[in-house]
């Protein structure tokens, strides 16, 4: 079981790390970006494989964790949060499901396609929801004068 976690953590670290190179993130920040992705995926893996949580909830939790770690790192490195969240989300992103959906439609398996389509949009919705919840929570706690700041909210 422990070895499992090491393998999953390492592999997701490398994928997030690789994507931060493809996205041209400054050199100093690619290792933290990789670690963000690895933490997110490991949370997802732990929830689905050992606690058998529903996929939707596990994805929300993982993306919340990613956003949380990214917020902390962004304050530490003084960069926009997107630098860490985008590569961090990569292992969780529903690209595979989107491809499977289109493939099923092309091959005439409409029902299977609809099934994959639902998975795609649910997963993407869960990712976006996790990020938004985190953004709202951070805004609540990081502002002393909450009511003076206006209501403009950017997730």
């Amino acid at each position, binding site marked *: 079981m422990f070895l499992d976690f090491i*393998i*999953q953590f*390492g*592999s*997701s670290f*490398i*994928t997030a*790390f*690789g*994507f931060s*190179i*493809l*996205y*041209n*993130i*400054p*050199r100093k920040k690619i290792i933290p970006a990789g670690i963000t992705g690895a933490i997110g*995926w490991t949370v997802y893996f732990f929830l689905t494989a050992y606690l058998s949580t529903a996929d939707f909830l596990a994805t929300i939790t993982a993306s919340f964790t990613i956003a949380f770690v990214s917020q902390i790192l962004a304050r530490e490195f003084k*960069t*926009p949060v*997107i*630098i860490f969240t*985008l590569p961090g*989300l*990569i*292992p969780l*992103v*529903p*690209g*595979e499901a*989107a*491809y*499977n*959906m*289109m*493939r*099923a*439609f*092309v*091959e005439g398996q409409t029902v299977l396609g609809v099934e994959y389509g639902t998975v*795609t*949009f649910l997963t*993407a*919705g869960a*990712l*976006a*929801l996790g*990020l*938004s919840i985190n953004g709202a929570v951070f805004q609540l706690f990081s502002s002393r004068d909450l009511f003076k700041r206006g209501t403009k909210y*950017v*997730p």
Partner: protein
Amino acid sequence: MELLTSKVLDVCTGIGRLMLENGAETYRVEDTVYRVAVNYGMQGVSVFSVPTALIITVQGPTGEEYTRLHRITEQKSNLGVVAEANELSRRIAKTDLTPNEALLELDRLNRMESSYSPFEEFLAIAFICGFFAILFQGNLHDLVAAAITGSIGYMVFLYSKKLTNIRFFSELLGALTIGWAALILTNLSIGHDVNVIIVASIMTLVPGKAITNGIRDLMASHFISGVSVLADALLTAAAIGIGISTVLSFI
């Protein structure tokens, strides 16, 4: 048009264009451009942006309105530039950076090259595809095969994108290459499970980022950009799906 207002609009569209071209979400772009304009003392600022255009209207000191429209044609993912543009807007807010100095700075950012060599990017792609095979429960054979097919497919995609400006076509070519390479490698028994190899190799082409960003745009009530980003993502997914299922229909 007054000189100052014109310069401020130059800075605003410059920053907005830079961010949109390099893959920032539209709500972030609108927010940044709005802040920059307000910091230069413009009144009645409103900004609208979709992934392909940026419109900004401001009121000058004497009350006339000026509008600037900027069309965005390029699309890439360079988050380093997005971070720098963000930093620039922060500096405009904190210090008294004049519009002229900001324009000079924008000029430097425009000429900023990618900070990684093509070889490093190639290695990154090979590693991404290889280790995605592990995440999809593949074994070491799949890792090696996915690394090979993924990097070949991405190279074909990049090269054909330089030759044509139809992205659908280059994605289709990339997917076809990946399909064939995966089949050949499994027949040579370098790879083990053809499905794992294919799914892992297409991960660099697949529109996961676009789908998530589209939904985030929708949640931030930017409906037009959200829907258009999602349409773009569906088109990419269709190109990859068509390419792979064409190849798999031969076996």
